[in-house]
Structures are given as structure tokens and as C-alpha cells.
């Protein structure tokens, strides 16, 4: 079995666990009721819609800034990133934590992460980069830049397949116990959820 299949099975297992709990709760009150649908599905759908809404806004800002082809000019790259960041921040003046990571999806994601961490063998826990030095050590803030003085901690590759997929312009990052949603090219933190990652 491929690693990808194992990952899928892991995620299915976690989601199945959540579904079973929901089913048990449903069956308790009404023995004749139909099996409940996957309770996580609407939550993930809502998350995807929120991400999509951000991307739509982002496209508008990006259209005004312009695309970037590989260039020898680092000044051009820096200027574009800065302009894009300013535009995105301006376009979401009231952005706040939880706009994309709603309480509902944050609860499920935190569960997925905790379960994945609990399955890790000791060797992984002992050597994982996010428990070592060179760690980003700041409190994230929505609509601010990810401080360039900190490295981007390596994201656990076994965790990524379990999280809702993102467009290629966005990425998840771990900062202490926070799960951060970062716009890659502008370096803007667009949302975060606290207490997502065991520390």
C-alpha cells in the first residue's frame, strides 16, 4: 500500500471516528432515525467557501498588482510582494481571527492534528523540527506579515494530507501552538487558530 493510501486511510479513520460519535448521539434519542450524514462535510464545505471568497478577493488585488515571471531583479520580486501585501491588507480591513478558521472547523482540525500527533512514534516526536531550535516564536496577528526574522518551520508531511486542501497560493504553517494560514507570495497572515498544535 502506498504512503498516500495510508494517509487517506488515516484521515478516513479520524473522520469515521467523528462520524461514529455523531451517529451514536443521534441513535441514542431516536432508534429509528436514518443514519446521519458526515457531520464534518458541511463544516469543511463552509471552510472551502471561505477560502474561495478570500481567493476571489485576492485575484482582484493581484490583477491590479500584476503577475510575476522569474526575474533577475530581486527588487522587482520584493516590490511585488510588498504591493500585494498592502493591497490584501487594505482589501480586508476588518479581517479578524476566525473569519476563515471558524470555531467549527477549528475544532475538527485541532482534533485531526492532536490525533495525528498522538500516533507519532517516539523517534518522530524526539526529532521533529517543530520541537527544536530555529523555531518561529511570535504571536500571529491577522492582516500582518509573517516576520521575516523567523524561519518557516517545516510542516509535518504526515499531517498535510489530513487537513483541508488549499489553493497553491496559500499554505498552513505552525507557529508555537497556532496553526497559521499564510498567503505565500505576499507573506500575509490571513487567519490563525490557537491551541491547534500540541506543544
Amino acid at each position, binding site marked *: 500500500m502506498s*504512503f498516500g493510501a495510508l494517509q487517506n486511510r488515516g484521515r478516513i479513520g479520524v473522520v469515521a471516528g467523528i462520524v461514529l460519535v455523531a451517529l451514536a448521539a443521534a441513535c441514542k434519542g431516536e432508534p429509528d432515525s436514518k443514519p446521519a450524514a458526515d457531520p464534518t462535510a458541511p463544516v469543511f464545505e463552509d471552510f472551502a467557501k471561505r477560502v474561495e471568497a478570500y481567493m476571489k478577493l485576492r485575484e482582484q488585488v493581484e490583477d491590479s498588482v500584476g503577475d510575476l515571471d522569474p526575474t533577475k531583479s530581486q527588487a522587482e520580486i*520584493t516590490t511585488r510582494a510588498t504591493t500585494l501585501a498592502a493591497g490584501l491588507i487594505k482589501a480586508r480591513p476588518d479581517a479578524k481571527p476566525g473569519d476563515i478558521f471558524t470555531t467549527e472547523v477549528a475544532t475538527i482540525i485541532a482534533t485531526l492534528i492532536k490525533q495525528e500527533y498522538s500516533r507519532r512514534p517516539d523517534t518522530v516526536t524526539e526529532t*521533529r523540527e517543530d520541537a527544536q531550535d530555529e523555531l518561529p516564536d511570535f504571536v500571529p496577528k491577522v492582516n500582518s506579515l509573517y516576520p*521575516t526574522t523567523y524561519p*518557516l518551520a*517545516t510542516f*509535518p*508531511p504526515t499531517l*498535510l494530507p489530513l487537513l483541508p486542501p488549499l489553493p497553491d497560493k496559500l499554505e498552513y504553517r505552525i507557529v508555537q501552538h497556532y496553526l497559521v494560514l499564510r498567503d505565500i507570495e505576499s*507573506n500575509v497572515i490571513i487567519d490563525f487558530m490557537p491551541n491547534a498544535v500540541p506543544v
Partner: protein
Amino acid sequence: MKSIVCITGIIVAIGTPALPAQEIALPMKPGSVRFLVLGDAGTGGREQYDVANQILRFGRRFPFTFAIMLGDNIYGSERPQDFRRKFEQPYAALLASDIEFHAALGNHDDPNQRYYKPFNLGGGRYRTFKKGNVRFFVIDSNYLDPEQLKWLEKELEASGSDWKVAYFHHPLYTTARRGPEVELRAVLEPLFVKYGVDVVFAGHEHIYERFRPQKGIPHFTVGGAAKLRKGDTRPSNLLAARYDRDRSFLLAEIAGDTLYFQAVTRQGAVVDKGSVARREASRPVAAATPAAKAP
């Protein structure tokens, strides 16, 4: 067979005479693929410039046409002046000689480096390119998402009979204090084994290490092109060579079914050299000979 003993942080082969500074231990066969390997280079500090100067000295007698960078290409801020001080100036002579740099991203690198043309990432975080009969796989080990894994598997499968060289920032094997990236290993190694990757290069740890083939694949850590974690390697039966006393880089040559290599310090001492046979060549791995202790 030579017996190996560890002295003051490096492995030396008893009976092997020390190579004079700047001695080329590579065969320089006609038509071979010759390249430079350097990792964790982008500090802009004196040590980076020292190493760059030593690379130039060796490059005069071992003409290579391209360099692979193992990440942490630019430490700290990434303003235009940083790219000048931490990349364009130290390697100015190489760039002027049209030496190509093919960078992988490290944990200190802004992913926007993908747009910096001299790094040859072509706007992506990961890519593959070919030199002669050698296929290189540049992997972004910072963010190994399912899309990248899918891409990697597809490219490995399609690479046919080429030499397969994978490189990225985080080492799957290391004795350094921070330890190996075992999560990455769990994801990447099965693909490397399945599709016959011949050799792996990584950086991140600021030392030099060469591991005996693990599941058939030799692993090099070449992360000392500017920074150093002095004394950070540890004895291990898995290791064929290690060096953690000064900055270092690696010269490599692939000719036919053999990869020849030579690890060099910023003082010009050769601290490891040897060769490894291609995995698919179905012949015994050639003896790799660690060189003498550096001064």
C-alpha cells in the same frame, strides 16, 4: 580493506596519505557531468566568501558547469541588497562564468525565491532538470504536500534509465544534534527505493556527512558552505565519513555508472573522497575512501 578510525571529529582511513591542498581526486572523464554541491550558504559572512574563493580555486582545475544549492540560500532579510551580499557577490566569478545555480528551498528561504531567476526554480517550489544522463529532482522539503508527492512519483516513474539524484534541504539521515527528519524519511524513502533514486543530497545541518547506503541509497549532508556546527556529528556505524571542524563543500562528477565525489574544506583540504556505483548498474558499490584528516 582499510580500517577506519575516528579522530577529532573526522573519519580518516589509516594508511591513506593526506592529500595536498587543492588536489583534484576526480577523474574528469570526457563527457562527464560535473557539479558543485553546497548547502546553507547564504549568510553573507566572511566564511561564505572564504568557501566561495576556495570553490573558485578548485573550479579552475575541476571545471564544473553548474551548482546545486541545498537550501538556506539567503539567511535573514531578503532585500535586494541581501541577494547581492549573500549570493551575487560571493559567487560573482562563477556567475560571470555562466555557472548555473539550481537551488532547493530551505526553512530560512522565502518561497518567493522561486521567482529569482538565478536560482532556476522557474516559478515553482520543486522541479526536475536533466544534465547529460542525470535527472535531478529538486524537492521542497519544507512543505511536502500531497500535490508535490504526486508530482514526484510521476516524475520518478517517467525518468526511465537516467541517473536519479534527489536533493532538498532536510536530511533523512544525520548524526547531528537536531537529528534526522524521520517524518520526511517515512514519506520520501519508499518512493526513492521504489523508483531507484541513486543518491540523495541534503543540507540543513552545518556539517559534512556521508552515510553508507541506506536501503541501497547513499546520503550526503553538505550543509557547511557558510555556517558551522562545530563538533556536531557523532560516531555511527551508518556513517562512512564525517567532518565538522570547518566549512565545506562537495565536488561531484558522474561518468557512466559511477559518481565520484570529493569533499573540501574552506582551507582547501580534502576530507572525503571516493565513488559510488549507480544502483541500477547491478555491480558492487565501489570502495569509497575517506581521505586524511584536515589540517
